[in-house]
């Protein structure tokens, strides 16, 4: 579903965000990308939805060669991807319903599809009863669920999450992670970049660890600090 081969990303300021990264993610997988801030997790996700292009290497997402994708075809790629961020990126002057519908409206979806899919997405994230409220009337967890509903409303095969629980308290964090798991069980490939050790250790899923732009660990049913010394665990 997702494949990176020898991917390096060098920013114009000389920072090497990713260094010869190769990674295969199968259809329907749930995978954590872990590592400290600035180790390239977000850069890797940005490459997948073609916000940036790799300096070298091949990237394939759902059969599309993303590293070679011309700008004109980027919208088509993004309609197959859902992306969720730490800061939700909701529009404050639109209701929950409108925020979710927005993703379909701006891609020119017919009204009848919107009327069918928005309620379905809101139901999936458990926000049907909040559909008329505005983002600032919601809790952080509810806002993130709105963002997830928006990411899912076009039925993407892949959901990319960049620190989805970074702004949430533990209770809301659990709620969001459980939701991501349920989405994954419905067949969506889910990639979560996080540095939340508790979440990763509780879930026991595939864990890919990045350090200074390199993959240092890739373990099924892994832990956040698997393979590292005891001292480093304590300092984390």
């Amino acid at each position: 579903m997702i494949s990176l081969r020898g991917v390096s990303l060098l920013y114009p300021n000389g920072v090497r965000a990713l260094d010869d990264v190769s990674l295969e993610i199968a259809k329907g997988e749930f995978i954590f990308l872990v590592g400290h801030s600035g180790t390239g997790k977000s850069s890797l996700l940005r490459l997948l939805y073609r916000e940036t292009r790799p300096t070298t290497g091949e990237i394939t997402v759902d059969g599309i060669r993303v590293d070679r994708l011309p700008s004109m075809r980027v919208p088509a790629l993004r309609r197959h991807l859902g992306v969720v961020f730490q800061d939700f990126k909701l529009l404050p002057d639109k209701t929950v319903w409108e925020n979710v519908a927005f993703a379909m409206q701006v891609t020119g979806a017919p009204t009848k599809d919107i009327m069918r899919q928005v309620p379905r997405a809101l139901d999936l994230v458990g926000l049907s009863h909040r559909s008329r409220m505005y983002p600032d009337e919601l809790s952080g967890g509810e806002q993130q669920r709105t963002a997830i509903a928006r990411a899912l409303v076009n039925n993407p095969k892949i959901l990319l999450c960049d620190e989805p629980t970074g702004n949430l308290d533990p209770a809301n964090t659990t709620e969001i992670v459980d939701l991501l798991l349920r989405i994954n069980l419905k067949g969506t490939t889910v990639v979560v970049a996080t540095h939340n050790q508790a979440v990763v250790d509780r879930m026991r899923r595939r864990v890919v660890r990045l350090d200074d732009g390199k993959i240092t660990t890739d373990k099924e049913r892994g832990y956040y600090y698997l393979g590292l010394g005891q001292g480093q665990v304590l300092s984390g």
Partner: protein
Amino acid sequence: MDWGRVKFFLGEVGRSFTRNTVMQITAIGTVAVMVTVLGAFLFVRTTLADLGNGVLEQIEISAYLKPNATPQQIGALRAAFKADPRIASAEFIPKSEGLKELRERMRGVVDTSLLTENPLPDKFRIRARSPEMVPAVAADVRRLNGIDNVVYGQAVVERLLRLGIVLRRIGMVLIGVFLVVAGIIISNTTRLAVYARRREIAIMQLVGATNLYVRMPFICEGLIDGLIGSVAAIVLLAVARATVWPRMLEALPFVQFNAAVVDVPSLLLQLLLVGGIVGALAAWVSVGRYLQT
């Protein structure tokens, strides 16, 4: 027709348009001023050109023949004039008829009976198809066999033509400057609108809206700015036409301006087009620049 989509789109345009009223009014005002000047210029230019053409159309070229010109030469000249596409008519006037005309014209001014012999040469009276062609035609005719001298209102024609060219150039520069100014102001308005909506644009791009879709509301906004500005200018021009124009005619009684030569519907259409195009284009460029970075 999917009315839900239309409604959503119009809503987006409307929200964008009403978000920054002050800037919007500035943009519309600039377009209005620009189009007013443009309209006034086009109006005056058309009437002036008509005036100039009136004078120029009466200009004829007199090609005087050498005294020893043979009938064959005269025949060849006649054929040459007929073959020249720039020449509308060429009339041969023998010296006897020329004298008759002179006597007509000078009756009561000079006693032409004092003339004992005919001092006039034979001549051709040539009319060019358009005033701009007169100097070139005259120069060519002068070179033909059997022609002694060519006379036309050189000074008048050249001065009028030059005046026309100068006026046109000044007008073009003026219009160019105004178009650029209006374009810059509209593109700044668009930039502010884009900046105000940058979150929405980011989300649109994230969920896979095409660039065209992202651009559309802003371009519509620029188009609306341009069109409203043009309409305001047209109203202003209509008022000026009704109030200032008659006074100008009174102030310049010796100039025969003819406002009827202006094709009003086509002028209005041109003004609307200019306003709309400047608005849409400026917005297009401005959003495009934002989306590429």
